[in-house]
């Protein structure tokens, strides 16, 4: 039960995108379609889970002073692993996500969880925490991507449901800011009711 809560909290209560406002660059940059958003979310989740496990295993060996650089090296190694895997198995997606794959290194969610959770808890809990936060991130990115794709090109996950053109602006840069802004308003509104 407790373990389940660990996963659940990442989805809603500590949702990295809508509540903690972390990892904004990939959130805005890669959500041109639901598929791209989900791909980015899953890649980040993989790095997050793996780095959380390793960091929680070696947390007692690393001296406190060089903690942050060591975390960054561990994270960067897993990013390279994920990068090479994606290049090999999903080259199309790798090309569309482009520079944002290596930039997972500087995604504050990952370093944030390493510092706040993995460096204090055991490997299993850390893995579950990574899974929860990763799922929350994937969910938000997929939702943002789906909304932008629906408005922008009249399709969802590549399946078109209208004929003709959508509102192109939502696929372009300004649409990212505007859609995220309005989704955040919606999220605030819904959770505000829940809190009362």
């Amino acid at each position, binding site marked *: 039960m407790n373990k389940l809560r660990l996963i659940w909290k990442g989805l809603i209560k500590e949702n990295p995108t809508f509540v903690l*406002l972390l990892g*904004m*660059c*990939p959130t*805005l*940059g890669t959500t041109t379609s639901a598929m791209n958003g989900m791909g980015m979310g899953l890649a980040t989740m993989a790095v997050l889970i793996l780095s959380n496990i390793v960091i929680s295993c070696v947390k007692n060996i690393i001296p406190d002073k060089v903690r942050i*650089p060591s975390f*960054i*090296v561990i994270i*960067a*190694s897993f*990013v*390279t692993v994920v*990068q*090479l895997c994606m290049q090999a198995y999903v080259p199309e997606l790798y090309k569309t996500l482009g*520079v944002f794959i*290596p*930039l997972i*290194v*500087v*995604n*504050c969610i990952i*370093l944030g969880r390493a510092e706040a959770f993995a460096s204090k808890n055991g490997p299993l809990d850390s893995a579950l925490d990574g899974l929860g936060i990763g799922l929350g991130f994937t969910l938000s990115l997929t939702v943002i991507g789906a909304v932008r794709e629906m408005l922008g090109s009249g399709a969802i996950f590549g399946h078109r449901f209208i004929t003709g053109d959508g509102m192109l*602006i939502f696929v*372009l*840069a*300004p*649409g*990212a*800011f*505007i859609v*995220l*802004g*309005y989704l*955040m*308003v919606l999220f*605030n*509104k819904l959770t*505000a009711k829940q809190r009362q």
Partner: protein
Amino acid sequence: MEYFIIIIAAIFVNNVVLAQFLGICPFLGVSSKVSTSLGMGAAVTFVMAISSIVVYLLQYYVLVPLGIEYMQTIAFILVIAALVQMVEIILKKVSPALYQALGIFLPLITTNCAVLGVAILLVQKEYNLLESFVFSVSTALGFALALVLFAGLRERLELEDVPQAFRGTPIALITAGILAMAFMGFSGLV
């Protein structure tokens, strides 16, 4: 002429924040006042200018000859983190006045994805040393421009009566969207 195109493209057409979505965290985080955003812009320009040269040398004189280009991400992030730390120490000794002005922003830059992003982009675009330098400085100027413009807008926004659910980040994001739309007007320029 070639350099002129790089400069215009990096500042206006492919603005690093509003078109490429790099460095959003400082864009949303330190843009509530024009004065602090000027400081952040200056610090980023300073670090990016130095890091472009260091990264260029690292890529073409260490990684490529050794055949370990796949170490790019790890090598770049370590070098940038070390560089920021070094710049901070040197600045403290050499120019205390400048350190006073930029000091608090420097540690924040390590996690600014714009610095690492530009480093990766300039390798991807296969720029030579001078082009890399020009590209980095003009990208940083584009970052500073977006930051200062946005800070000016947010200062005015503070005084407005914004609906409860929109307060804070949501209205800032929507404003940024409109600013990005304005920047799209530059898209036919180059």
